[in-house]
């Protein structure tokens, strides 16, 4: 009697978690909003110098002004375009070479030592050479960004393929997969979680390198806005630009994550299952 009741009792836990995240995201806002308000108050009360440390209201006003004049969108698009191009080239090169060196021992023996050596060069050190080769315009900028994006993707994919479970590779062999089929149907899917992490790291580096690229001479772009702000001593412009980088970096990272999620639904790790 008691036993059947217990078995027949409905499971209470299943519905609860879905109602949770509705307010949870707001928790992440508490600290930054408090800091911004405190900062605003500190400037208003004259505790800190508002010229070098402009309060959030001034930064937002500057941003608004830039947006109204149509300048902001030009800079944002210029920077986005460079990051996008550099990212795509870096990803393609990193993926092809990473898959090749991960799969083929001969390719690994021939290419990996060289790539590892190149990796130990700080990427910014390439700037003078790239300018010499490609001029100071778009090509050298995109090349620099692609260089930054390339390495984490190459490394992660190559390693992830090397460490794919031999037992799964055997499943491919027993089904008579050809080399490219093995790469496409077993090695790449198995490496996908590490690959996605690497893509996000690569995108982060892309945003880092676009600043360096735009520092080396640009007439538009958020990096240009930074330099311009420094030249004219306009701290609010610098901070507005930084704010744009933060928002764009976060949004593009989230976008990449969201694009990858459907391909990673099968994962069974801590935190990947709701």
């Amino acid at each position, binding site marked *: 009697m008691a036993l059947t009741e217990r078995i027949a009792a409905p499971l209470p836990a299943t519905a609860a978690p879905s109602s949770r995240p509705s307010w949870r995201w707001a928790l992440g806002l508490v600290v930054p909003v408090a800091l911004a308000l405190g900062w605003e108050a500190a400037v208003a009360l004259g505790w800190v110098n508002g010229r070098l440390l402009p309060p959030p209201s001034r930064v937002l006003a500057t941003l608004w002004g830039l947006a109204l004049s149509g300048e902001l969108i030009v800079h944002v698009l210029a920077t986005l375009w460079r990051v996008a191009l550099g990212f795509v080239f870096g990803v393609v090169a990193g993926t092809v070479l990473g898959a090749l060196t991960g799969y083929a021992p001969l390719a690994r023996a021939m290419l990996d030592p060289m790539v590892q050596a190149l990796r130990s060069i700080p990427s910014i050190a390439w700037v003078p050479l790239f300018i010499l080769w490609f001029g100071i315009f778009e090509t050298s900028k995109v090349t620099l960004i692609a260089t930054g994006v390339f390495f984490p993707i190459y490394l992660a994919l190559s390693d992830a393929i090397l460490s794919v479970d031999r037992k799964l590779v055997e*499943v491919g062999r027993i089904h008579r997969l050809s080399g490219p089929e093995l790469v496409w149907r077993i090695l790449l899917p198995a490496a996908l979680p590490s690959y996605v992490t690497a893509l996000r790291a690569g995108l982060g580096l892309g945003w880092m390198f676009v600043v360096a690229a735009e520092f080396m001479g640009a007439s538009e772009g958020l990096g240009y806005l930074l330099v311009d702000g420094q030249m004219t001593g306009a701290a609010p412009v610098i901070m507005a630009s930084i704010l744009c980088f933060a928002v764009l970096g976060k949004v593009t990272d989230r976008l990449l994550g969201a694009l990858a999620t459907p391909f990673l639904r099968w994962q069974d790790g801590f935190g990947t299952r709701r």
Partner: protein
Amino acid sequence: MLSVQDLSKRYPTGTLALTGMDLTVEAGEILAIVGGSGCGKSTLLRLVAGLETPTTGSVVLDGTPVRAPRAEIGLVFQEPRLLPWLTVRQNVGFGLRELPEAERRRRVDEVLARVGLADFADAWPRDLSGGMAQRVALARALVARPRVLLLDEPFSALDALTRYDLQDHLLQLWEYDRPTMVLVTHDIEEALVLADRIIVLQPRPGRIQAAFAPGLSRPRDRTDPALEAWKRRLLGELDLSFKSRRTGEEQFPAAAI
């Protein structure tokens, strides 16, 4: 007919895993291979499957030598080895890439129904129990309608009840289109319940110690006294195989096959 002639395998590490193996399996026959761990059972299956190349000798299926994996030869490993990024249906259909989509789906769903997992076609491997996952692995091997099905201790990781269930189930599947089966196991009862013929291997290097054809009628009952008697006899044989491993010498000549 599957035949193995003078088959031996020495791994690059120097281990002689298998030596001078001769055996023949008739079409539709169920052969069990028993022996302690390390006596080359997996090596034998991998050679027959074409996953390893023999050091000497050959494997011949219906007149043609097996040198690489073939569609007519299916292999089920000890672990299910499902691809975690594919659903159950996609896993089962993994090897059917030449077939048109509709035909593939029909074949996959038909096999899934036969292994009793029609309702789990869209599940992810992570959501399956051990027994269910091994059924999917079985379905993946069966969907290609192999003439030879090799099974490497397929149920040894499962609990006893699930194991009994899957043994009975395997027989039902076998009766459907009667593939030749070679079943590696270290469970004597499993061998007696399933097989027509049983070969006992002895280790270091792996070779045939004895072969038996118990001649039990089907369907078999695990508590049948005749089966129990065979069990005692085979246990004695295995004990011998362990003794010869300990002393490193052959105490009795291997029985004729």
